[in-house]
């Protein structure tokens, strides 16, 4: 499904914002799990959502808020552990949760977001709104019990949930082939009586189309869908983790980086639609924005113990008095 001119440029911008945001992380504060290579999957899915739709994410948490359209500055400040960070510097790189855009948790417990997204779906159904809930998770997460329990519940109750698997082929060093009885995660949907769809995760508009169909179904009361986007992580599992073994071929990485870069692919699409100049303007704007974000993060103060205390409870009781804070 083709995005119109403005939406296609917004889609390109968001993808590029993820890429540039993470390149800035590598350059300035190398922590965390990068989504570089997976931008089309993330943004394609988010383009099908409204601002008030819910999203849950993962330890690979940078792309989801950016994909949903979040402001980069508080996100970057969070990476730097600053008080101006979206989570006051308490959550950090694996937890860039911007609730103003419907994000309700980036779970660093693999699979932990699946029940949360399902619960948001339940909430929508009980409160009778027409929102939907979209759950990002990885191929590795699909082996957690929460995957099974969540998808089944959503199917029984016909909840408006889109289960969106970013299948990047690996969980740390473990390939899908070595950890899944069969490699197509979408094929598991049938066991729950739910549609399962495989989509090219490097093609933003293909992802958008698949997600739009699932969103339409969900909003119409048709229940959940499982979407599997086949994608690839260009970098290592995490900036901070040394990997002492070779678990994927260099040629494989080179192939995806070269021929399957979602940003290059989408740039070509825009070029083909005569939008090269506009795309260049987007690129300039994103570069500027990223610099601003880094500067903002650098200039921001660190959180204090009081910020931490203030974030613990809505309704503190005997707290912080009895907490034993030195």
């Amino acid at each position, binding site marked *: 499904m083709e995005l119109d001119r403005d939406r296609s440029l917004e889609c390109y911008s968001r993808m590029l914002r993820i890429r540039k945001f993470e390149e800035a992380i590598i350059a300035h504060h190398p922590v965390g799990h990068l989504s570089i290579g997976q931008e089309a999957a993330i943004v394609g899915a988010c383009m099908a959502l409204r601002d008030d739709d819910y999203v849950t994410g993962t330890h690979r948490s940078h792309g989801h808020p950016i994909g949903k359209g979040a402001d980069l500055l508080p996100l970057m400040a969070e990476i730097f552990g600053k008080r101006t960070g979206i*989570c006051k510097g*308490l959550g950090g790189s694996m937890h860039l949760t911007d609730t103003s855009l419907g994000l309700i948790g980036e779970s660093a417990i693999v699979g*932990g977001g699946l*029940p949360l997204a399902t*619960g948001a*779906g339940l*909430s929508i159904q009980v409160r009778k709104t027409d929102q939907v809930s979209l759950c990002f998770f990885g191929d590795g997460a699909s082996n957690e019990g929460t995957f099974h329990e969540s998808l089944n*519940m959503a199917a029984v109750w016909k909840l408006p949930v889109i289960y969106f698997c970013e299948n990047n082929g690996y969980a740390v060093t473990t390939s899908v082939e070595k950890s899944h009885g069969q490699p197509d995660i979408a094929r598991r949907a049938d066991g729950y009586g739910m549609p399962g769809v495989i989509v090219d995760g490097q093609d933003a508009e293909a992802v958008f189309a698949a997600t739009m169909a699932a969103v339409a179904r969900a909003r119409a009361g048709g229940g959940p869908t499982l979407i599997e986007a086949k994608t690839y992580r260009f970098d290592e599992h995490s900036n901070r983790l040394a990997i002492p073994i070779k678990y994927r071929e260099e040629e494989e990485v080179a192939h995806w980086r070269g021929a399957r870069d979602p940003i290059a692919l989408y740039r070509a699409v825009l070029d083909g639609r005569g939008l090269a100049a506009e795309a260049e303007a987007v690129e300039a704007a994103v570069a500027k924005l990223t610099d601003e974000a880094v500067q903002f993060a650098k200039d921001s103060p660190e959180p204090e113990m009081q910020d931490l205390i203030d974030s613990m409870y809505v309704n503190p009781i005997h707290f912080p008095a009895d907490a034993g804070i030195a």
Partner: protein
Amino acid sequence: MLNSTQKLSYLQAIVEAHREEMRRDENVILMGEDIAVYGAQSLFDEFDESRLRNCPLSELGFTGVGVGAALTGLRPIVDLTIASFLYLASDQIINQAAKLRFMTGGQLKVPLVVRCSTFYNNRTAAQHADRPYPLMMNTPGLKIVAPSCASDAKGLLKAAVRDDDPVLFFEDITLWGKKEDVPVDEDFVVPIGKADVKRAGKDVTIVAFAGTVPPALVAAEALAKEGIDAEVVDLRTLVPMDKETVLSSVAKTGKLVIVDNSHRVGSVASEVAAVVVEEAFDSLRKPIQRVTAPAVHVPYNARLEKQLFPTKETIGAAVLRVV
């Protein structure tokens, strides 16, 4: 309706608390397995199945669903039924419910209640009979209550539903059938974090909670006949604990016996003892006594099972060791 009461069992009081809170706020829902079997069948007469969710056997999943619903406008009560199933759900409670507000710098709140019932002295053997009170005491961000009578059960459950933080609610099946006059006032709540002196006394402090309160009170009456005047403090809330009430009782009596149905090691009793020896050492005149279940599993055989849990006799004996 103020000041009027109604004779209710502990379990009926819990169901009444549901009914009142579900009437008051349409965002309150109940989730769990076979809801009707666990006492709440009468709610189906009044409320829609949309708010009374019979769940598949997916404890981790549906507890997490409760968390997600709590994040997005509902106030779910998740009934895990038997407390021995709490382990299955513990990740969503500890890593999500208790942490999400903090980890998002206060952006989110999790108004969730998780119920579970300790199923001991019921001949169901070790996989059903745990009293895992201590399991989540170490997790910041959670509140944990464990009422000992129908009024407290009703008032604490209502307080829990109204609280914007996650609350773990332990019921005690040995109390389910116990009847009492319970306030019918729909705004009757028992504050979380407040212990209750269930019997005033001056010679020794007995700290108890949930199913250990009734035998503690019986023991106290028996001791009274021997001229020993025991104060019985019902903790009611395990976290955040009402240290003040415990410490001021010990300040008065100088002697402390703690009664806890959980296993001895790492028990609630251990925490109470630690707080007291740290903060009221100078008032303490005798060794603190923990009267607990021993560190062995619960057997099926009823006669043996019964021997594991504190009784008026073992409580009385512990008091006699220190007075």
